[in-house]
C-alpha cells in the first residue's frame, strides 16, 4: 500500500518544529509501524536527506523505548499495543498518517520524535524501590506471599515506563506510572515497610517534574500498551492519604536511610 506521512521534524530541543510530509510507498501489511518508518528513512538517506529520528530498541513491545503519537493517539490506534507492535495491516491504502512526539512539558523534545523521559527515572530514584542491599537476604520462601497479592503486584509491575499515559493525558499527568510502581511494591510484604514515604516522595517528584494532576478521564488507561488499570491510581490515592501530610517526610534529599 501507499501512504502519506505527516511527521513532526525538530532539529533539537532549542529549535522550533513543524510537520513535514513524506510519501511511504510499497508498504506491506506484515511490516510493523517502525519497519515502515525504516523504509521511509532508507529512502531519505539515499536522497541525502536527514532521516526521521525516533527511539526504538527491542521491537517486541517490552523495552518501552518507542514513543510516538500516531493520528493523535499514543502508540497508535490499536489497543494495548506499542508502536513497534502495531502492524501496517491496521491501516489502509492511501491513508494519511500524522506522527508526532509525546506531548508533555516534562518530556522535552530532543529531536523529531525523540523526547527526554528522564523525569520517569528521577521519580523512581525518589523512592520506587525496596531499600535492600545485596546479600544476606532471607530465603525466598521465608515470607509467603498470597498468590492474589503476587498477581496484583505483577499486574502493576508490568509497566514498561514508555510514557504513553502522560502523553495521552490532557493534563500530562503521570499518575498511572507512579501508581503502578507504588502498587507493585506496597502489596508485597517486602515493599511494605517503606510504603508511606515511597508514596509521598514519588508524588512529590512527579509534581516537581512538571507533570499535572489526574483528572479521572481514564485516557491513560486507554493508551497504556500494557493495560494497566486506573484502579491502581485509586490505590495510589489511598496510599498517599494513608501516608499523611508531606511533613511526615523524614528524610532529607540525598540521605541514605529511608526506612519508613
Amino acid at each position: 500500500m501507499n501512504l502519506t506521512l505527516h511527521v513532526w521534524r525538530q532539529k533539537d530541543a532549542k529549535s522550533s518544529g513543524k510537520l513535514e510530509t513524506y510519501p511511504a510507498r510499497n508498504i506491506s501489511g506484515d511490516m510493523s509501524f517502525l519497519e515502515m518508518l525504516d523504509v521511509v528513512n532508507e529512502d531519505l538517506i539515499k536522497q541525502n536527506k536527514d532521516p526521521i529520528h525516533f527511539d526504538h530498541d527491542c521491537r517486541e513491545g517490552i523495552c518501552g523505548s518507542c514513543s510516538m503519537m500516531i493520528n493523535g493517539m499514543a502508540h497508535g490506534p490499536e489497543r494495548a499495543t506499542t508502536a513497534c507492535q502495531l502492524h501496517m495491516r491496521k491501516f489502509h491504502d492511501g491513508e494519511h498518517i500524522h506522527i508526532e512526539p509525546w506531548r508533555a512539558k516534562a518530556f522535552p523534545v530532543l529531536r523529531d520524535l525523540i523526547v527526554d523521559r528522564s523525569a520517569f527515572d528521577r521519580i523512581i530514584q525518589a523512592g520506587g524501590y525496596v531499600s535492600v542491599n545485596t546479600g544476606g537476604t532471607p530465603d525466598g520462601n521465608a515470607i509467603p506471599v498470597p498468590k492474589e497479592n503476587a498477581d496484583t503486584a505483577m499486574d502493576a509491575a508490568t509497566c514498561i515506563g514508555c510514557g504513553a499515559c502522560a502523553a495521552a493525558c490532557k493534563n500530562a499527568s503521570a499518575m498511572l506510572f507512579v501508581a503502578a510502581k507504588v502498587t507493585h511494591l506496597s502489596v508485597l510484604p517486602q515493599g511494605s515497610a517503606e510504603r508511606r514515604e515511597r508514596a509521598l516522595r514519588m508524588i512529590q517528584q512527579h509534581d516537581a517534574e512538571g507533570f499535572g494532576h489526574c483528572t479521572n478521564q481514564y485516557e491513560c488507561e486507554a493508551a497504556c500498551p500494557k493495560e494497566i488499570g486506573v484502579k491502581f491510581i485509586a490505590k495510589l490515592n489511598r496510599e498517599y492519604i494513608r501516608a499523611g501530610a508531606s511533613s511526615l517526610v523524614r528524610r532529607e534529599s540525598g540521605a541514605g536511610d529511608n526506612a519508613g
Partner: protein
Amino acid sequence: MQLESHIPSGPLAGKWTKYKADQKLVNPANKRKYSVIVVGTGLAGGAAAATLAELGYNVDSFCYQDSPRRAHSIAAQGGINAAKNYQNDGDSIYRLFYDTIKGGDYRAREANVHRLAEVSVNIIDQCVAQGVPFAREYGGLLANRSFGGAQVSRTFYCRGQTGQQLLLGAYQALSRQIYNGKVKMHPRTEFLDLVVIDGRARGIVVRDMTTGKIESYSADAVLLATGGYCNTYFLSTNAAGCNVSATYRAYKRGATFANPCYTQIHPTCIPVSGEHQSKLTLMSESLRNDGRVWVPKNASDIGKHPNSISESDRDYYLERIYPSYGNLAPRDIASRQSKKACDDGRGVGPGGRGVYLDFAAAIKRDGLSKIQEKYGNLFDMYERITGESGYKQPMRIYPALHYTMGGLWVDYNLMSNLPGLFVLGEANFSDHGANRLGASALMQGLADGYFIIPYTLSNYFAGVKPEKLSTDHAEFKRCEEEQKQKIQKMLSIKGKKTAIDIHRELGHIMWDNVGMARTKESLNRAIDKIRNLREEFWSSVNVPGTNDDLNQALERAGRVADFLEFGELLAKDALTREESCGGHFREEYQDSEGEAKRDDEHFCHVAAWEYAGPDKEPVRNVEPLNWEVAHPSKRSYK
C-alpha cells in the same frame, strides 16, 4: 600468550568458599577512594553498578538507551534457574552444575559453572527481597516450571516477563544508588574506546549521543557488561541497538576474544515474513513445556490447514527422536531438527521455513484458561505479529539467532587478560560452553553482577592503589583523536548505500555460511565475502548529517563497521574449530545419526583470539579445559 585461569585449588565444590575465605579485602574507609566504570545496565551491569555502590565504591554507569531500565535483558521472557529444590524433585547444586556443563557440550570451565550453580540460590532470595513479583502457588510459596535441557522444575518466572522484572529489580537498586550519589548515570552515551595505560585498563572514551560530544572517563577499573553479538547476523531476537562494539574495540586494545563461533540459535521464534524485516521475535522456550512440535509426515500435506491434518499424519519429531527429553530437548538439538525437517521439504508457512508448535493437547488437558494464565501474553504477541491465533491453530516457529556464548576471555575473577578490565554476563565467554540452556543467561548475568564481581573486584583493588588519573593524559587524547577521525571518515564517504543495506548483506552472508550448519567451504566463502563487503562499506556508505547532534544513522554506521570486522573473526574461529559441539555444528563432523561429534582430544579447550594489527592474522591462544568432576561423555538426550 599464557592464559592463566586463576582457578582456586582444592575440591571443586569448595573452590568458591575457599576463594572468599582467602580473598583480600578493602577497608570500608578506603573503598570510597576507588572508582569503577560500568558499561551496560542490563542484568549484569545494572546489578554490578548497584552492588559496588552499596559497598562504597564510586561508580560511573553508562548505557546507550535513554534509561538504564531499557537494557535488552528486559526482553527475556522465560525464567531464571536456581538449585533451590523447592519441588523436592531431586535438584541440587551439583545437578544444576552438571546439567549446565553437559548442556554446554563440555566446553565451559568447571570451576566457573559450579560457582554459578552455588550462587543461583542466593539470586532468588535477593530478587524476592527486592520485590520481584515471582509467580506464587496458592500457599504463598514460589512456583517453578521446567525448561529445555533439564528434567527437574527449577525455573522461577514472572509470567512471560521474567527478564523485565529481574531487570527492574536491578534498575531499582541502581536508582537508589543514583539518588544516594554513589552512582553517576550516563544514559544516551555510547562506548567508543577502551584506554589502556601501562598494560592496565584505565578508562573509556564515549560519545554523548544527544550532542555528539566525545569525552573520556578514567577509573581504577573498567567493567564491560555490554551483552552479545547476535546482531552480526542482522536478523536476531536481540534489540536493534545490541552491538559488539565495546567488546570488539576492547579486543583491538589487547583483550582476547574467546570462542566467537559459539552462537545460539533458538528454536522457538516467529518465522521471517519478508525482506523488510528488522528483527525476529522469540516465543519463550517455556512454551515447549506444553506445546508439541510437529511437521506433516508427508510433504504432500504442506499447504493444508494444520487442523485438517490427522494425528496419524503428523510427525512429532522431537518426541520421536528424543523420547526422554521430547519437546524439552536443548536448543541446539531442537533447532537443528527443525532445520532438518524443513530441508526435508516438510517445513510449513511462507517459504517452507517453519514448524508447528501445537497447544491443542494442552488446552484439552488443562483447559483454555490455564493455558491463557500461563502463556497469555505470548499468544497475544504471536497473534499481533502474524495475524493468527495460537489457541485456534498451531503456531509456526523457526530457529533464529538468540544468544552468543563467546565473548571476551576472562579468568575466574571475571578479569580479562588486561588487568583492570572485567567482563560480565553475555559479554564474557565463561559459563555456557558451546551451547546455553534455557533460563541460564539471566542466572549468569545476576550471578556476575550481584555475587561474583563484588568479591573479585575487591580482591583486585586490594592489590592496587587508588589513583585519580586525569583524562588529559596523552593516551586518552590519542584514543579520542582516533575515534574522531574514524567518525569524520564515515561522514565524508557520501556513497550510495546505507549502513543498513550493508548490514543486511552481512547478515545474509553470516546466516547462509556461518549459521546452523557450517563447512570449511562455507566458512572460507564467508571470510572472502565479508572482506569485500567491508571494502564496500568504506568506499560506498552514505552516512547523512554531522557529528554535532543526535544522529542515529551515524550510530548505526559505527556499529556496522565493527560487525564487518568481527564477522570475519567469528568465521575464522568456526573454521579452526574442526569439530562439532553445541551450537557450533560443522557438517564434516557428525555421527551416523547426524548428531554433533566432538573431538575432545584436539579441541577440549577455549580458543582466545589476540589482535595482531589491522592487516595481520589474529593469534589463536588456547586455554586447555580440565575435568575433575564432570568427565566429558557423549551428550545424549534420547
